[in-house]
């Protein structure tokens, strides 16, 4: 199977719905350490990304992702908004000039997202961030594909790994943002950024399920 520009547009819609449905969950999580605007930032941000992609007749996969990322960065220029936009824009750069990729290349799609966020935010794995939710999912995706499993199975495993990764941020010491200012106390809380990664992979799973039908 292929992942096309049309699929990207659908995936962005699923992500926008996912963030919309979970806005309150993110607000509560972020309210413990941040200023509780994460839920709104993510639902507004992914909504603007999805709307931008839906409204464009661009056939190029990369340019579509880049445009969606840019729309997000304009809509929500907060730290997390800019980071998520950077991920989409990095996908854009990586896949500029092509209209589809093989399903087996999807780990590279998420890896580009990861790299975009990391190079912008300069966090390392284990710093209790978004990256700690996404990294295990990419790893799970790679091993599932290497084992020759169908993409539906790959998506289920990636989503489970992202959720595990999110839960594992409890116990980590935060080094960035407001949570980073709390030192040892930050260990007791779940990272809201990793929750966003979890939601992205839950969204990816439901996108793949729907597509298979």
């Amino acid at each position, binding site marked *: 199977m292929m992942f096309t520009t049309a699929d990207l547009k659908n995936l962005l819609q699923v992500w926008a719905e996912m963030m919309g449905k979970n806005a309150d969950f993110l607000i509560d999580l972020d309210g413990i350490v941040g200023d509780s605007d994460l839920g709104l930032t993510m639902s507004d941000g992914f909504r603007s990304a999805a709307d931008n992609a839906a409204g464009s007749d661009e056939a190029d996969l990369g340019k579509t992702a*880049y445009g969606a990322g*840019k729309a997000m*960065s*304009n809509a929500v*220029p*907060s*730290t997390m908004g*800019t*980071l998520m*936009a*950077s991920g989409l*824009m990095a996908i*854009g*750069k990586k896949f500029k000039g092509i209209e589809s990729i093989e399903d087996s290349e999807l780990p590279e799609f998420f890896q580009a997202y990861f790299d975009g966020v990391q190079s*912008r*935010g300069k966090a390392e794995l284990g710093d209790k961030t978004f990256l700690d939710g996404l990294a295990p999912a990419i790893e799970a995706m790679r091993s599932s594909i290497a084992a020759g499993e169908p993409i539906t199975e790959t998506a289920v495993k990636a989503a489970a790994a992202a959720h595990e990764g999110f839960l594992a941020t409890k116990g980590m010491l935060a080094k960035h943002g407001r949570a980073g200012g709390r030192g040892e106390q930050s260990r007791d809380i779940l990272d809201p950024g990793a929750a966003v990664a979890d939601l992205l992979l839950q969204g990816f799973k439901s996108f793949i399920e729907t597509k298979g039908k």
Partner: protein
Amino acid sequence: MKKIINDPKNFVPEMLEGIYAAHPNEVAYVNGDLHCLVNARKHPGKVGIATGGGSGHLPLFLGFVGDGMLDGCSIGDVFQSPSAEQMFEVTKEIDQGAGVLYIYGNYGGDILNFDMAAEMADFEADIRVESVVAGDDVASGEPLAEGKKNTRRGVAGIFFVYKCAGAAAAKLKSLDEVKAVAEKVCANVRTMGVALSPCIVPRVGRPSFELAEDELEIGMGIHGEPGIRRGKMISADEMVSEMMDSILKDLPYAKDDEVAVLVNGLGGTPLEEQYVVYRQIHKILDSKGIKVYHAYVGEFATSMEMAGFSISLLKVDDELKELLAAPVDTPFFKQAQF
């Protein structure tokens, strides 16, 4: 809150409308956005220099856009970063084919957005962009060291970075050369501030922190970030001595070294008091055999109506002296060749 404003939410656009109306031949805005300010005069073949940051610090940042200094500035709400898109619009406008240098202060939101703007410039417009991030406040992080991330905030010392890089660009130096000048200034400039009273962000409507009538805070940042010591009021000479001590220790000086000095009022401190401050700085430098090449006294990087001042010292060599002496003409800062 007692301020000369209309609706607080229109504070920044109304301030900008005033600036464009007052200086129509010197500054203009691009993309129909008041927050994207550029020099109205173009200089073909010159490296473009852009800065940006939140409002509330005039003359910083936009006030240094003009001949001999900066080419463009993106402007955020009070103490808020402008967006990457706004920075990108400025970048496109000021590129004269020689590339663009971003010079801005070391703050998280600004770094994220300038990095993203540089990426847009590369991806969408094939403009080469380099960045220099100024972090000169000795009160806000460990001393600079090779290979270590600078955690210090950017404050008034960025004026010297703009001045020297701007002069280098005006001489039609290449992007790499202008960047090297900016980095050299960053490596040789140190600043420290003191606050006597807080400021009020119009949309917030109340002071950002409390400071009792008889208290001061040494090392406070230009957005009211915590300093290194809060204490009872002391004399001007005592304040200056304490601050100079930290500054001179941070970048060691030898006898016969030369410096440029910047005394910067934070918005609510009269020039008279600033000259009382300069007097003591000059005495201390004299006593150590450090020569003053040039002194600037006035408002360069304010924090709304905050009372207080900062001291910046730039250690200069022949190259930096020549660049400092070059003429500048911006709406907020003019200097004849000296």
